[in-house]
């Protein structure tokens, strides 16, 4: 082929692929609204706050951004609102180990940010992030879970708390909590956390049935240093 022919192939070939790309873009734009909830004023205000504080400078969202801090796509689905609000306004007051600085986010901005994160958590992301396969597999095999463990799982406590290395780091670890607290403290704390821990960011679980509270408390009491299994 002559240089001229290769050159033409380059130009027209590239245009060809760009036109296909534009057509796909057009099609995609038409489909996006059906894949996400409606964008309210609050959601948009939250997005503006997201940009204002340059959150993407530390976090990813939909997996894009920086890799210094956890992905935010599904946060609102996993963590209670009360907790998120307190954390956004003053991270280290909620969790002294938090790396996130106090940025000066106002109470109103925190509400809007949560609305924005609730929106992203409902976007259809083709199944991302995937469920951790090994953890799921481990839950299926092995021994039967106790009633308390089931409640612990169904309430999603592990989004914030860690037991034996599994779970979140945003709230205190519970691996040995049974050695530190007694039954009365635990049940009372479930009903009204801030009565026991001033300014606690944990939501109250007073609306649980008496049996569920007892099961949870039983489970917590088994969590002790070696010796008792």
């Amino acid at each position, binding site marked *: *082929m002559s*240089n001229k022919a290769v*050159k033409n*192939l*380059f130009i027209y*070939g*590239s245009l060809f*692929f*760009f036109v*296909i*790309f534009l057509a*796909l*873009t057009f099609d*995609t734009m038409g*489909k*996006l609204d059906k*894949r996400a909830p409606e*964008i309210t004023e609050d959601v*948009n205000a939250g*997005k*503006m706050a*997201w*940009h*204002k504080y*340059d*959150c*993407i*400078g*530390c976090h990813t969202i*939909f*997996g*894009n*951004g*920086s*890799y*210094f*801090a*956890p*992905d935010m796509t599904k946060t609102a689905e996993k963590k209670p609102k009360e907790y998120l609000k307190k954390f956004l306004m003053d991270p280290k007051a909620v969790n002294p180990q938090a*790396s996130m*600085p106090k*940025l000066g986010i106002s109470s109103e901005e925190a509400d809007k940010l949560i609305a924005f994160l609730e929106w992203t958590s409902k*976007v*259809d*992301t*083709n*199944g*991302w*992030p*995937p*469920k*951790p396969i*090994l*953890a799921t597999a481990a839950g299926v095999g092995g021994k039967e879970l106790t009633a308390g463990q089931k409640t612990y799982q169904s309430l999603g406590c592990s989004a914030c708390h*860690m037991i034996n*290395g*599994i*779970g*979140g*780091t945003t709230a205190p670890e519970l691996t040995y909590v049974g050695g530190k607290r007694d039954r009365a403290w635990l049940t009372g704390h479930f009903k009204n956390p801030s009565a026991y821990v001033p300014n606690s960011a944990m939501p109250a679980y007073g609306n649980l049935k008496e049996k569920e509270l007892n099961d949870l408390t039983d489970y917590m009491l088994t969590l002790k240093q070696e010796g008792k299994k």
Partner: protein
Amino acid sequence: MTIKHESQKIAQHFYTFAVLLFLVQVLVGIIAAVQFIWPDFFILNFNTIRTLHINALVVWLLVGFMGATYYVVSEESETELWSLPLAKFQFWATVVTITTVVLGYIIMGLYPQANILVFGTRLLNEGREYIEAPRWADVLIVISVLLFLLNCAMTVLKTKKWTGIQGVLLGGLVFLALMYLPGMMYAKSMVKDQFWWWWVVHLWVEGAWEIIAGALLAFMLMKTIGAKREVVEKWMYVEVGLVLFTGILGTGHHYYWIGTPEYWLWVGGIFSSLEPIPLLLMVWNAFRTTRETRNVENKVGLYYTVANAIFNFVGAGLWGIIHTLPQVNKWTHGTQITTAHGHLAFYGAYVLLVMAMIYVTLPAIRGVKEFNPSRAFQSFWWMTISMVFIVLTITGAGMVQTYMERLMGLDYVAVKANYNLWFWIFRAIFGVGFLIGVGIFVVDYFKLGKEPATARA
């Protein structure tokens, strides 16, 4: 080696600014690396440091391209630039804009509340990765780029020597300028925001910039070993053609999980997997052409040119293809694997490209026939070995993260703080090695041609 046209010297203004920003980029990169170990290590938070790190990178590469382009266009058109005063004005305007933007980032880092809304856009920091520059700065940058393109186009029109190299180079730059525009609009939907954002980021590094790399590769092979124009231009068309045939639809590899339809898994997966092919062709081209010639006119220039082709393929091609299929990307998306690839790709494809252009053109600009190559080789090895180790370290961190967080379901923070700690420490150490390499390069840049050449090549 001497320049044929006085105005080619303007390239040096751009190179100097680029080299200094490179130094800044790597210094703040080390601060960022230490913040992975101690988040409160510095007065500025991590997000501001990272913004400075990646913006300095993008800007110095762009500024480097501009300097190189002024040189090439004048050389290929066999005439002086259309307007030297305009080129100087455009240079200083760029320096002033960039400096102001950087000050804005620092102010915003210290007082986030200063990032107020003005006419619906942010005053200091737009809060979008890589294109953090506020809208008013975007406008100034676009004007500067338009003036630059005008100057180049008018120069070509003076003698109408539309060589293949200048056609492709300027075409790539126009594409680059156009692809900046989708980043300049606000979208209420975070999905649309990221959709257009990738037009800028992906179509730059895997589109426009690779076109520029293809054109400059052809130019450098001609200058360093006197390769035949006919031959290198044909290779160039094939390379840049394949870059766009695969790279445009390859954008789909960023549309897997952001809320866009499922068909992107197919489009992105297939086309992006083919993206390494043109990069491999560039390596083959560089080796074949080099083997066919005996008289090397600029040893260091050739060395960097070939290294550029190789590491472009390794960083972008190999480290890209490992996580580009949706079946893999589902698990690695947004992990340290991405950072490992980002570093080796930018280093191999564009840092080495601008450095190669500097070593190919600077001796002529400084009017020397020969120069002592030892510092150029030293800095190459310090940088390359350190970068390879940074990348291996971070690839390790990414594998641990993918396994523990994504597969086992451990918490993000637990993995980062406990299991990956040693990787962060090693990255910071290798980062210092990289800084040493950059330091040697900066010294060499300022001294080249200004001291008597000792070693005869």
